[in-house]
Protein backbone atom coordinates (compact mmCIF):
# COMPACT_ATOMS: atom_id res chain seq x y z
CA UNK A 1 0.00 0.00 0.00
CA UNK A 2 1.33 3.36 -1.00
CA UNK A 3 0.71 6.45 1.10
CA UNK A 4 1.03 9.98 -0.15
CA UNK A 5 1.58 12.48 2.60
CA UNK A 6 1.46 16.18 1.86
CA UNK A 7 3.11 18.86 3.93
CA UNK A 8 3.49 22.60 4.01
CA UNK A 9 6.32 24.78 5.24
CA UNK A 10 5.18 27.34 7.83
CA UNK A 11 6.88 29.84 10.18
CA UNK A 12 7.64 28.09 13.48
CA UNK A 13 4.48 28.66 15.54
CA UNK A 14 6.37 28.10 18.78
CA UNK A 15 9.15 30.59 18.11
CA UNK A 16 9.13 33.20 20.84
CA UNK A 17 7.81 36.65 20.07
CA UNK A 18 10.42 38.76 18.31
CA UNK A 19 12.55 35.77 17.33
CA UNK A 20 13.21 35.46 13.61
CA UNK A 21 10.64 32.86 12.63
CA UNK A 22 12.38 29.83 11.22
CA UNK A 23 10.40 27.68 8.83
CA UNK A 24 9.25 24.25 9.97
CA UNK A 25 6.95 21.53 8.68
CA UNK A 26 3.38 22.48 9.58
CA UNK A 27 2.86 20.66 12.93
CA UNK A 28 -0.32 18.92 11.75
CA UNK A 29 1.46 17.69 8.63
CA UNK A 30 4.28 16.40 10.80
CA UNK A 31 1.67 14.29 12.60
CA UNK A 32 0.46 13.02 9.23
CA UNK A 33 4.03 12.08 8.25
CA UNK A 34 4.51 10.27 11.56
CA UNK A 35 1.31 8.29 11.04
CA UNK A 36 2.36 7.26 7.54
CA UNK A 37 5.74 6.12 8.86
CA UNK A 38 4.08 4.08 11.59
CA UNK A 39 1.87 2.43 8.98
CA UNK A 40 4.99 1.47 7.07
CA UNK A 41 6.73 0.24 10.22
CA UNK A 42 3.71 -1.91 11.08
CA UNK A 43 3.93 -3.41 7.62
CA UNK A 44 0.65 -1.87 6.49
CA UNK A 45 2.23 0.51 4.02
CA UNK A 46 5.04 -0.30 1.63
CA UNK A 47 5.96 3.18 0.48
CA UNK A 48 5.57 6.66 1.94
CA UNK A 49 5.88 9.46 -0.58
CA UNK A 50 5.99 13.04 0.63
CA UNK A 51 4.91 16.00 -1.44
CA UNK A 52 5.00 19.72 -0.94
CA UNK A 53 4.34 22.72 -3.14
CA UNK A 54 6.65 25.69 -3.05
CA UNK A 55 9.94 27.28 -4.14
CA UNK A 56 13.41 25.77 -3.53
CA UNK A 57 13.54 27.30 -0.04
CA UNK A 58 11.18 24.60 1.25
CA UNK A 59 13.80 21.94 0.50
CA UNK A 60 14.95 22.35 4.09
CA UNK A 61 11.59 21.09 5.35
CA UNK A 62 11.65 18.37 2.71
CA UNK A 63 14.97 17.20 4.15
CA UNK A 64 13.37 17.13 7.60
CA UNK A 65 10.60 14.92 6.24
CA UNK A 66 13.17 12.66 4.55
CA UNK A 67 15.14 12.56 7.81
CA UNK A 68 11.99 11.50 9.67
CA UNK A 69 11.95 8.58 7.26
CA UNK A 70 9.71 9.12 4.22
CA UNK A 71 10.96 7.10 1.27
CA UNK A 72 11.02 9.82 -1.34
CA UNK A 73 10.01 13.40 -1.74
CA UNK A 74 8.47 15.47 -4.48
CA UNK A 75 8.40 19.22 -4.67
CA UNK A 76 6.02 20.87 -7.05
CA UNK A 77 7.88 24.00 -7.93
CA UNK A 78 5.56 26.97 -7.62
CA UNK A 79 6.36 30.16 -5.77
CA UNK A 80 2.96 31.81 -6.22
CA UNK A 81 0.66 32.56 -3.30
CA UNK A 82 -1.77 29.76 -4.04
CA UNK A 83 -5.12 29.35 -2.31
CA UNK A 84 -6.36 26.05 -0.88
CA UNK A 85 -8.48 25.30 -3.94
CA UNK A 86 -5.51 25.79 -6.27
CA UNK A 87 -3.38 23.55 -4.03
CA UNK A 88 -6.11 20.91 -4.05
CA UNK A 89 -6.28 20.98 -7.86
CA UNK A 90 -2.51 20.58 -8.17
CA UNK A 91 -2.53 17.72 -5.68
CA UNK A 92 -5.43 16.17 -7.59
CA UNK A 93 -3.31 15.88 -10.72
CA UNK A 94 -0.43 14.45 -8.71
CA UNK A 95 -2.63 11.91 -6.93
CA UNK A 96 -4.04 10.62 -10.21
CA UNK A 97 -0.44 10.10 -11.35
CA UNK A 98 0.94 8.54 -8.14
CA UNK A 99 -2.19 6.52 -7.37
CA UNK A 100 -1.77 6.09 -3.60
CA UNK A 101 -4.28 4.19 -1.48
CA UNK A 102 -4.28 6.85 1.21
CA UNK A 103 -3.57 10.55 1.11
CA UNK A 104 -2.63 11.81 4.56
CA UNK A 105 -2.22 15.45 5.54
CA UNK A 106 -2.65 17.77 8.50
CA UNK A 107 -6.13 19.12 9.10
CA UNK A 108 -4.94 22.69 8.67
CA UNK A 109 -1.79 24.73 8.21
CA UNK A 110 -1.12 26.84 11.28
CA UNK A 111 -0.19 29.95 9.31
CA UNK A 112 -3.30 30.19 7.15
CA UNK A 113 -5.70 28.19 9.36
CA UNK A 114 -7.95 27.45 6.37
CA UNK A 115 -8.63 23.77 6.91
CA UNK A 116 -9.75 23.13 3.34
CA UNK A 117 -7.24 21.30 1.15
CA UNK A 118 -7.90 17.72 2.25
CA UNK A 119 -11.66 17.99 1.89
CA UNK A 120 -11.36 19.72 -1.49
CA UNK A 121 -8.96 17.08 -2.73
CA UNK A 122 -11.32 14.32 -1.63
CA UNK A 123 -14.19 16.10 -3.38
CA UNK A 124 -12.22 16.44 -6.63
CA UNK A 125 -11.15 12.81 -6.51
CA UNK A 126 -14.60 11.57 -5.51
CA UNK A 127 -12.91 9.70 -2.64
CA UNK A 128 -14.34 9.44 0.84
CA UNK A 129 -12.71 11.59 3.50
CA UNK A 130 -12.04 11.38 7.22
CA UNK A 131 -11.08 14.73 8.70
CA UNK A 132 -9.72 15.76 12.14
CA UNK A 133 -8.69 12.19 12.76
CA UNK A 134 -7.17 11.04 16.06
CA UNK A 135 -7.11 7.31 15.40
CA UNK A 136 -6.74 5.14 12.28
CA UNK A 137 -7.07 1.38 11.95
CA UNK A 138 -7.25 -0.61 8.74
CA UNK A 139 -10.13 -3.04 8.25
CA UNK A 140 -11.04 -5.80 5.79
CA UNK A 141 -7.53 -6.48 4.51
CA UNK A 142 -6.87 -2.76 4.10
CA UNK A 143 -9.92 -2.17 1.96
CA UNK A 144 -11.30 0.23 4.55
CA UNK A 145 -9.99 2.46 7.33
CA UNK A 146 -11.76 2.98 10.61
CA UNK A 147 -11.16 6.53 11.79
CA UNK A 148 -11.91 8.32 15.06
CA UNK A 149 -12.67 11.98 14.35
CA UNK A 150 -12.48 14.85 16.80
CA UNK A 151 -15.72 16.79 16.45
CA UNK A 152 -17.21 19.62 18.49
CA UNK A 153 -19.32 17.15 20.41
CA UNK A 154 -16.74 14.45 21.00
CA UNK A 155 -15.22 11.53 19.10
CA UNK A 156 -17.11 10.26 16.06
CA UNK A 157 -16.07 6.98 14.47
CA UNK A 158 -16.51 6.29 10.77
CA UNK A 159 -15.14 3.76 8.32
CA UNK A 160 -14.07 4.90 4.87
CA UNK A 161 -13.37 2.77 1.82
CA UNK A 162 -9.91 3.12 0.35
CA UNK A 163 -8.62 5.02 -1.46
CA UNK A 164 -9.42 7.90 0.87
CA UNK A 165 -8.17 11.24 2.09
CA UNK A 166 -7.45 11.43 5.82
CA UNK A 167 -6.57 14.63 7.69
CA UNK A 168 -4.74 14.48 11.00
CA UNK A 169 -5.71 16.17 14.24
CA UNK A 170 -3.37 16.94 17.13
CA UNK A 171 -3.79 13.76 19.09
CA UNK A 172 -3.30 11.23 16.32
CA UNK A 173 0.27 10.67 17.53
CA UNK A 174 3.38 12.38 18.76
CA UNK A 175 5.80 12.84 15.87
CA UNK A 176 9.30 11.46 16.24
CA UNK A 177 12.22 13.81 16.32
CA UNK A 178 14.65 14.01 13.44
CA UNK A 179 17.62 11.88 14.47
CA UNK A 180 21.15 12.43 13.25
CA UNK A 181 21.32 9.05 11.47
CA UNK A 182 18.03 9.99 9.78
CA UNK A 183 19.53 13.29 8.75
CA UNK A 184 22.59 11.58 7.25
CA UNK A 185 20.44 9.11 5.32
CA UNK A 186 18.24 11.94 4.08
CA UNK A 187 21.26 13.56 2.46
CA UNK A 188 21.44 10.62 0.11
CA UNK A 189 17.75 10.61 -0.85
CA UNK A 190 16.87 12.63 -3.94
CA UNK A 191 14.27 15.37 -4.02
CA UNK A 192 12.28 15.15 -7.24
CA UNK A 193 11.03 18.44 -8.64
CA UNK A 194 7.98 18.79 -10.85
CA UNK A 195 6.22 21.79 -12.33
CA UNK A 196 2.51 22.31 -12.82
CA UNK A 197 3.21 22.22 -16.53
CA UNK A 198 4.80 18.78 -16.28
CA UNK A 199 1.78 17.65 -14.30
CA UNK A 200 -0.46 19.09 -16.98
CA UNK A 201 -2.42 21.27 -14.59
CA UNK A 202 -3.13 24.94 -14.96
CA UNK A 203 -4.37 26.79 -11.91
CA UNK A 204 -4.80 30.40 -10.97
CA UNK A 205 -5.62 31.28 -7.38
CA UNK A 206 -9.18 32.55 -7.00
CA UNK A 207 -8.45 34.08 -3.62
CA UNK A 208 -6.42 37.27 -3.28
CA UNK A 209 -5.23 38.72 -0.01
CA UNK A 210 -5.80 42.46 -0.29
CA UNK A 211 -4.35 43.48 3.04
CA UNK A 212 -3.11 42.17 6.36
CA UNK A 213 -3.78 44.04 9.58
CA UNK A 214 -3.35 43.56 13.30
CA UNK A 215 -6.43 42.77 15.32
CA UNK A 216 -7.56 45.45 17.76
CA UNK A 217 -5.81 45.09 21.11
CA UNK A 218 -7.92 44.45 24.14
CA UNK A 219 -7.79 47.43 26.48
CA UNK A 220 -5.37 46.59 29.28
CA UNK A 221 -7.06 45.36 32.39
CA UNK A 222 -6.41 45.83 36.06
CA UNK A 223 -4.90 43.65 38.75
CA UNK A 224 -7.02 42.85 41.77
CA UNK A 225 -5.48 41.68 45.01
CA UNK A 226 -8.17 39.55 46.57
CA UNK A 227 -11.21 37.40 45.89
CA UNK A 228 -13.41 40.05 47.52
CA UNK A 229 -12.12 42.74 45.20
CA UNK A 230 -12.59 40.47 42.19
CA UNK A 231 -16.21 39.71 43.12
CA UNK A 232 -16.91 43.41 43.66
CA UNK A 233 -15.50 44.28 40.21
CA UNK A 234 -17.46 41.52 38.51
CA UNK A 235 -20.66 42.65 40.20
CA UNK A 236 -20.42 46.41 40.08
CA UNK A 237 -18.14 47.27 37.19
CA UNK A 238 -18.53 44.39 34.72
CA UNK A 239 -22.05 43.45 35.85
CA UNK A 240 -21.58 39.80 34.96
CA UNK A 241 -22.48 38.31 38.32
Amino acid at each position, binding site marked *: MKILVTFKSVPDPYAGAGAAAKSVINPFDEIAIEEALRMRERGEATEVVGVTIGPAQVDEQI*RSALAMGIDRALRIDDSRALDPYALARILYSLVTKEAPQVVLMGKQAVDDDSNQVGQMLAGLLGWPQATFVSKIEFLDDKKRARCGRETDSGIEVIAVKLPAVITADLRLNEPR*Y*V*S*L*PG*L*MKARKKPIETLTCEQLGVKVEPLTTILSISSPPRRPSGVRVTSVEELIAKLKEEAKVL
Partner: protein
Amino acid sequence: MDFAWSDQQKELLAAVDRFVKEQLNYDMIENDRNAVFNHDAWKKCAGFGIQGLPVSEEYGGLGQDPLTTVAALERLGYGCKDNGLLFSINAHMWTAIIPLIFNGNEAQKKKFLPGLVDGSLIGGNAMSEPNSGSDAFALATTAVKKGAKYILNGSKIFVTNGPIADVLLVFAATDKSKGAQGISAFLVEKEFPGLDLSHKIEKMGIRTSPMGEVFFEDCEVPEENLLGKEGAGSWMFTRSMTWERGSILAAHVGTMQRLLETCIRYANERKQGGQSIGKFQQVATKIVEMKMRVERSRHALYHYGWAMNHRKAVYMEAALAKLEISDSWVKCCEDAIQIHGGYGYMVEYEIERELRDSLGSKLYSGTSEIQRNIVASLLGL
Protein backbone atom coordinates in the same frame (compact mmCIF):
# COMPACT_ATOMS: atom_id res chain seq x y z
CA MET B 1 40.99 30.87 8.78
CA ASP B 2 37.28 30.24 8.46
CA PHE B 3 34.98 30.42 11.48
CA ALA B 4 31.80 29.54 9.57
CA TRP B 5 29.98 26.22 9.83
CA SER B 6 29.15 24.41 6.62
CA ASP B 7 25.49 23.96 5.65
CA GLN B 8 25.65 20.32 6.71
CA GLN B 9 27.11 21.24 10.09
CA LYS B 10 24.43 23.89 10.54
CA GLU B 11 21.73 21.38 9.73
CA LEU B 12 23.19 18.88 12.19
CA LEU B 13 23.55 21.44 14.98
CA ALA B 14 20.00 22.70 14.42
CA ALA B 15 18.75 19.13 14.73
CA VAL B 16 20.59 18.80 18.07
CA ASP B 17 19.00 22.04 19.30
CA ARG B 18 15.56 20.82 18.44
CA PHE B 19 16.10 17.35 19.90
CA VAL B 20 17.38 18.69 23.20
CA LYS B 21 14.64 21.29 23.51
CA GLU B 22 11.87 18.80 22.88
CA GLN B 23 13.23 15.61 24.43
CA LEU B 24 15.62 16.44 27.26
CA ASN B 25 14.02 19.25 29.20
CA TYR B 26 12.90 17.20 32.17
CA ASP B 27 12.77 18.13 35.83
CA MET B 28 16.14 17.66 37.48
CA ILE B 29 15.71 18.60 41.14
CA GLU B 30 14.33 15.25 42.30
CA ASN B 31 16.68 13.19 40.13
CA ASP B 32 19.65 15.07 41.58
CA ARG B 33 18.43 14.69 45.15
CA ASN B 34 17.91 10.97 44.73
CA ALA B 35 20.94 10.44 42.46
CA VAL B 36 18.83 8.88 39.70
CA PHE B 37 20.37 8.01 36.36
CA ASN B 38 17.91 8.76 33.55
CA HIS B 39 17.96 5.60 31.43
CA ASP B 40 15.22 6.90 29.20
CA ALA B 41 17.19 10.04 28.36
CA TRP B 42 20.27 7.88 27.74
CA LYS B 43 18.34 5.81 25.22
CA LYS B 44 16.91 8.92 23.60
CA CYS B 45 20.37 10.43 23.18
CA ALA B 46 21.64 7.21 21.65
CA GLY B 47 18.61 6.94 19.36
CA PHE B 48 19.17 10.50 18.28
CA GLY B 49 22.82 9.74 17.51
CA ILE B 50 24.87 11.41 20.26
CA GLN B 51 26.87 8.42 21.47
CA GLY B 52 27.70 7.50 17.88
CA LEU B 53 28.86 10.93 16.73
CA PRO B 54 32.56 9.99 16.29
CA VAL B 55 31.93 6.35 15.31
CA SER B 56 32.04 5.41 11.64
CA GLU B 57 28.81 4.55 9.85
CA GLU B 58 30.00 0.98 9.43
CA TYR B 59 29.34 0.43 13.14
CA GLY B 60 26.09 2.37 13.27
CA GLY B 61 27.64 5.76 14.04
CA LEU B 62 27.67 9.06 12.23
CA GLY B 63 31.34 9.37 11.32
CA GLN B 64 31.55 12.98 12.40
CA ASP B 65 34.89 14.72 12.77
CA PRO B 66 36.06 15.88 16.22
CA LEU B 67 35.16 19.54 15.66
CA THR B 68 31.58 18.77 14.62
CA THR B 69 31.33 16.29 17.48
CA VAL B 70 32.34 18.77 20.18
CA ALA B 71 30.08 21.44 18.65
CA ALA B 72 27.16 19.03 18.79
CA LEU B 73 27.97 18.25 22.43
CA GLU B 74 28.09 21.97 23.17
CA ARG B 75 24.50 22.26 21.89
CA LEU B 76 23.53 19.25 23.95
CA GLY B 77 24.83 20.96 27.09
CA TYR B 78 23.07 24.21 26.26
CA GLY B 79 19.68 22.54 26.39
CA CYS B 80 20.21 19.63 28.76
CA LYS B 81 20.53 20.46 32.45
CA ASP B 82 21.33 16.89 33.47
CA ASN B 83 25.09 17.25 33.90
CA GLY B 84 25.27 13.73 35.30
CA LEU B 85 23.77 12.28 32.15
CA LEU B 86 26.20 14.34 30.08
CA PHE B 87 29.09 13.07 32.20
CA SER B 88 28.01 9.46 31.76
CA ILE B 89 27.72 9.96 28.01
CA ASN B 90 31.18 11.53 27.89
CA ALA B 91 32.77 8.79 29.94
CA HIS B 92 31.14 6.26 27.65
CA MET B 93 32.33 7.99 24.49
CA TRP B 94 35.88 8.90 25.44
CA THR B 95 36.91 6.07 27.73
CA ALA B 96 35.15 3.13 26.09
CA ILE B 97 34.23 3.94 22.49
CA ILE B 98 37.37 5.83 21.46
CA PRO B 99 39.87 3.21 22.76
CA LEU B 100 37.83 0.54 20.99
CA ILE B 101 37.87 2.46 17.70
CA PHE B 102 41.62 2.91 17.80
CA ASN B 103 42.73 -0.36 19.36
CA GLY B 104 39.98 -2.90 18.84
CA ASN B 105 40.29 -5.70 16.33
CA GLU B 106 37.46 -6.24 13.87
CA ALA B 107 35.73 -8.86 16.02
CA GLN B 108 35.84 -6.61 19.10
CA LYS B 109 34.52 -3.62 17.16
CA LYS B 110 31.71 -5.66 15.66
CA LYS B 111 30.81 -7.09 19.02
CA PHE B 112 30.72 -3.88 21.07
CA LEU B 113 30.48 -0.76 18.93
CA PRO B 114 26.94 -1.11 17.55
CA GLY B 115 25.55 -1.58 21.09
CA LEU B 116 27.64 1.25 22.52
CA VAL B 117 26.33 3.46 19.72
CA ASP B 118 22.64 2.52 19.94
CA GLY B 119 22.58 2.85 23.72
CA SER B 120 21.86 -0.79 24.53
CA LEU B 121 25.34 -1.07 26.07
CA ILE B 122 26.80 1.30 28.63
CA GLY B 123 30.55 1.55 28.78
CA GLY B 124 33.22 3.15 30.93
CA ASN B 125 36.73 2.60 32.07
CA ALA B 126 38.39 1.54 35.27
CA MET B 127 41.82 3.06 35.78
CA SER B 128 42.12 4.85 39.13
CA GLU B 129 42.85 2.73 42.17
CA PRO B 130 42.70 3.55 45.86
CA ASN B 131 46.46 4.15 45.79
CA SER B 132 46.94 5.49 42.28
CA GLY B 133 45.10 8.50 40.95
CA SER B 134 47.05 11.14 39.15
CA ASP B 135 50.00 8.73 39.21
CA ALA B 136 47.90 6.65 36.88
CA PHE B 137 50.29 3.84 35.95
CA ALA B 138 51.19 2.66 39.45
CA LEU B 139 48.62 -0.12 39.34
CA ALA B 140 48.05 -2.79 41.95
CA THR B 141 45.45 -4.65 39.89
CA THR B 142 47.00 -7.61 38.15
CA ALA B 143 46.10 -9.81 35.22
CA VAL B 144 47.68 -13.24 34.96
CA LYS B 145 47.39 -15.33 31.82
CA LYS B 146 46.04 -18.81 32.50
CA GLY B 147 45.32 -20.87 29.39
CA ALA B 148 42.93 -18.94 27.16
CA LYS B 149 42.01 -16.61 30.00
CA TYR B 150 43.37 -13.76 32.03
CA ILE B 151 42.68 -13.81 35.74
CA LEU B 152 42.19 -10.31 37.23
CA ASN B 153 42.62 -9.41 40.87
CA GLY B 154 42.44 -6.03 42.56
CA SER B 155 40.07 -3.10 42.81
CA LYS B 156 39.29 0.18 41.08
CA ILE B 157 37.78 3.35 42.41
CA PHE B 158 35.89 6.33 40.92
CA VAL B 159 34.58 4.20 38.08
CA THR B 160 32.11 6.36 36.18
CA ASN B 161 29.13 4.31 34.97
CA GLY B 162 30.51 1.40 37.05
CA PRO B 163 27.21 0.45 38.71
CA ILE B 164 25.33 0.50 35.38
CA ALA B 165 28.07 -0.64 33.02
CA ASP B 166 27.72 -3.48 30.56
CA VAL B 167 31.36 -3.34 29.56
CA LEU B 168 34.32 -1.70 31.26
CA LEU B 169 37.76 -1.07 29.88
CA VAL B 170 39.94 -2.24 32.76
CA PHE B 171 43.62 -1.45 33.03
CA ALA B 172 45.73 -4.01 34.89
CA ALA B 173 49.39 -4.93 35.22
CA THR B 174 50.35 -8.00 33.18
CA ASP B 175 54.01 -7.51 33.96
CA LYS B 176 54.81 -5.42 37.02
CA SER B 177 58.52 -5.44 36.29
CA LYS B 178 57.97 -3.33 33.17
CA GLY B 179 56.10 -0.51 34.98
CA ALA B 180 53.97 1.54 32.59
CA GLN B 181 55.03 -0.79 29.73
CA GLY B 182 53.58 -3.73 31.63
CA ILE B 183 50.01 -2.46 31.67
CA SER B 184 47.31 -4.03 29.49
CA ALA B 185 43.69 -3.17 28.80
CA PHE B 186 40.77 -5.61 28.97
CA LEU B 187 37.15 -5.42 27.90
CA VAL B 188 35.44 -6.75 30.99
CA GLU B 189 31.78 -7.63 30.58
CA LYS B 190 29.40 -7.34 33.48
CA GLU B 191 28.50 -11.03 33.62
CA PHE B 192 32.10 -12.26 33.90
CA PRO B 193 32.61 -14.35 37.03
CA GLY B 194 34.57 -12.64 39.80
CA LEU B 195 33.46 -9.11 38.87
CA ASP B 196 31.64 -7.01 41.46
CA LEU B 197 30.07 -3.75 40.28
CA SER B 198 27.67 -3.27 43.15
CA HIS B 199 29.49 -0.66 45.23
CA LYS B 200 28.04 2.74 44.49
CA ILE B 201 29.82 5.89 45.65
CA GLU B 202 27.89 8.98 46.69
CA LYS B 203 29.13 12.25 45.22
CA MET B 204 28.82 15.99 45.80
CA GLY B 205 27.83 16.79 42.24
CA ILE B 206 26.94 15.17 38.90
CA ARG B 207 24.91 12.95 41.19
CA THR B 208 22.79 11.53 38.38
CA SER B 209 25.87 9.85 36.91
CA PRO B 210 26.42 6.61 38.82
CA MET B 211 29.95 6.07 40.07
CA GLY B 212 31.26 3.06 41.90
CA GLU B 213 34.06 0.93 43.15
CA VAL B 214 34.81 -2.21 41.19
CA PHE B 215 36.31 -5.37 42.62
CA PHE B 216 38.01 -8.24 40.79
CA GLU B 217 38.33 -11.51 42.59
CA ASP B 218 39.83 -14.09 40.26
CA CYS B 219 37.79 -12.43 37.58
CA GLU B 220 38.00 -14.48 34.38
CA VAL B 221 38.47 -12.56 31.16
CA PRO B 222 38.76 -14.53 27.89
CA GLU B 223 41.89 -13.66 25.93
CA GLU B 224 39.87 -12.33 22.99
CA ASN B 225 38.84 -9.50 25.34
CA LEU B 226 42.40 -8.19 25.59
CA LEU B 227 42.34 -4.83 23.83
CA GLY B 228 45.40 -4.28 21.68
CA LYS B 229 48.60 -6.00 22.63
CA GLU B 230 49.84 -6.95 26.07
CA GLY B 231 51.70 -3.99 27.53
CA ALA B 232 50.00 -1.45 25.24
CA GLY B 233 47.62 -0.23 27.97
CA SER B 234 49.39 2.91 29.08
CA TRP B 235 50.01 4.16 25.54
CA MET B 236 46.36 3.45 24.74
CA PHE B 237 45.24 5.30 27.84
CA THR B 238 47.35 8.34 27.00
CA ARG B 239 45.99 8.44 23.47
CA SER B 240 42.33 8.24 24.44
CA MET B 241 43.01 10.65 27.30
CA THR B 242 43.76 13.35 24.72
CA TRP B 243 40.29 12.90 23.28
CA GLU B 244 38.81 12.76 26.73
CA ARG B 245 40.54 15.91 27.97
CA GLY B 246 39.66 18.00 24.99
CA SER B 247 36.08 16.85 24.57
CA ILE B 248 34.71 15.99 27.99
CA LEU B 249 33.77 19.57 28.86
CA ALA B 250 32.38 20.50 25.44
CA ALA B 251 28.82 20.29 26.74
CA HIS B 252 29.61 22.74 29.50
CA VAL B 253 30.50 25.52 27.11
CA GLY B 254 26.80 25.22 26.30
CA THR B 255 25.97 25.08 30.01
CA MET B 256 27.85 28.35 30.54
CA GLN B 257 26.05 29.96 27.64
CA ARG B 258 22.74 29.00 29.26
CA LEU B 259 23.88 30.35 32.65
CA LEU B 260 24.93 33.59 30.98
CA GLU B 261 21.50 33.98 29.39
CA THR B 262 19.78 33.16 32.68
CA CYS B 263 21.81 35.84 34.45
CA ILE B 264 21.15 38.46 31.76
CA ARG B 265 17.41 37.77 32.00
CA TYR B 266 17.46 37.94 35.78
CA ALA B 267 19.56 41.10 35.84
CA ASN B 268 17.10 42.81 33.54
CA GLU B 269 14.00 41.65 35.38
CA ARG B 270 15.09 41.99 38.99
CA LYS B 271 14.54 45.52 40.28
CA GLN B 272 16.22 47.10 43.29
CA GLY B 273 15.83 50.74 44.22
CA GLY B 274 13.67 51.34 41.16
CA GLN B 275 16.05 50.00 38.52
CA SER B 276 17.05 46.65 37.15
CA ILE B 277 20.11 45.23 38.86
CA GLY B 278 21.82 44.86 35.47
CA LYS B 279 22.30 48.62 35.59
CA PHE B 280 24.53 48.24 38.64
CA GLN B 281 28.12 48.20 37.54
CA GLN B 282 29.11 45.38 39.88
CA VAL B 283 26.47 43.12 38.40
CA ALA B 284 27.16 44.18 34.82
CA THR B 285 30.88 43.54 35.27
CA LYS B 286 30.24 40.02 36.52
CA ILE B 287 28.10 39.33 33.48
CA VAL B 288 30.65 40.78 31.08
CA GLU B 289 33.32 38.58 32.62
CA MET B 290 31.00 35.63 32.31
CA LYS B 291 30.64 36.42 28.61
CA MET B 292 34.42 36.61 28.24
CA ARG B 293 34.80 33.22 29.90
CA VAL B 294 32.20 31.64 27.66
CA GLU B 295 33.90 32.98 24.56
CA ARG B 296 37.38 31.96 25.69
CA SER B 297 36.11 28.49 26.52
CA ARG B 298 34.35 28.17 23.18
CA HIS B 299 37.46 29.24 21.29
CA ALA B 300 39.63 26.84 23.27
CA LEU B 301 37.17 24.04 22.51
CA TYR B 302 36.84 24.76 18.80
CA HIS B 303 40.58 25.21 18.46
CA TYR B 304 41.10 21.81 20.02
CA GLY B 305 38.47 20.33 17.66
CA TRP B 306 40.05 22.01 14.67
CA ALA B 307 43.52 20.74 15.64
CA MET B 308 42.10 17.22 16.00
CA ASN B 309 40.52 17.50 12.55
CA HIS B 310 43.93 18.31 11.12
CA ARG B 311 45.60 15.45 13.00
CA LYS B 312 48.22 17.58 14.60
CA ALA B 313 49.65 16.82 18.02
CA VAL B 314 46.96 18.18 20.30
CA TYR B 315 48.34 17.60 23.82
CA MET B 316 48.65 21.32 24.37
CA GLU B 317 45.24 22.20 22.92
CA ALA B 318 43.48 19.47 24.88
CA ALA B 319 45.08 20.46 28.19
CA LEU B 320 44.36 24.15 27.58
CA ALA B 321 40.73 23.48 26.68
CA LYS B 322 40.25 21.36 29.79
CA LEU B 323 41.84 24.01 32.01
CA GLU B 324 40.03 26.92 30.50
CA ILE B 325 36.58 25.35 30.48
CA SER B 326 36.75 23.84 33.96
CA ASP B 327 38.00 27.06 35.56
CA SER B 328 35.42 29.09 33.66
CA TRP B 329 32.53 26.77 34.48
CA VAL B 330 33.18 26.90 38.20
CA LYS B 331 33.61 30.66 38.14
CA CYS B 332 30.47 31.19 36.04
CA CYS B 333 28.46 29.17 38.56
CA GLU B 334 29.81 31.17 41.49
CA ASP B 335 29.03 34.42 39.74
CA ALA B 336 25.58 33.24 38.72
CA ILE B 337 24.81 32.48 42.37
CA GLN B 338 26.14 35.86 43.45
CA ILE B 339 24.05 37.67 40.84
CA HIS B 340 20.92 35.82 41.97
CA GLY B 341 21.63 36.61 45.63
CA GLY B 342 19.85 34.41 48.16
CA TYR B 343 17.73 32.88 45.40
CA GLY B 344 20.83 31.51 43.73
CA TYR B 345 21.57 29.52 46.87
CA MET B 346 18.13 27.90 46.81
CA VAL B 347 17.69 24.48 45.21
CA GLU B 348 14.63 25.64 43.25
CA TYR B 349 16.69 28.06 41.16
CA GLU B 350 18.90 25.22 39.92
CA ILE B 351 22.13 27.20 40.06
CA GLU B 352 23.57 25.73 43.26
CA ARG B 353 23.40 22.33 41.55
CA GLU B 354 25.41 23.71 38.64
CA LEU B 355 28.14 24.79 41.06
CA ARG B 356 28.21 21.37 42.71
CA ASP B 357 28.28 19.74 39.26
CA SER B 358 31.04 22.01 38.01
CA LEU B 359 33.58 21.43 40.77
CA GLY B 360 34.42 17.89 39.69
CA SER B 361 35.61 19.18 36.34
CA LYS B 362 38.81 20.33 38.02
CA LEU B 363 39.42 16.78 39.21
CA TYR B 364 38.38 14.21 36.66
CA SER B 365 40.28 13.37 33.47
CA GLY B 366 43.39 14.79 35.07
CA THR B 367 43.25 17.45 37.76
CA SER B 368 43.87 21.08 36.90
CA GLU B 369 47.30 20.66 38.45
CA ILE B 370 48.10 17.79 36.08
CA GLN B 371 46.89 19.83 33.11
CA ARG B 372 49.18 22.67 34.17
CA ASN B 373 52.06 20.20 34.47
CA ILE B 374 51.40 19.07 30.90
CA VAL B 375 51.35 22.63 29.61
CA ALA B 376 54.48 23.48 31.59
CA SER B 377 56.38 20.51 30.24
CA LEU B 378 55.28 21.27 26.66
CA LEU B 379 56.59 24.78 27.21
CA GLY B 380 59.96 23.27 28.01
CA LEU B 381 59.84 23.92 31.73
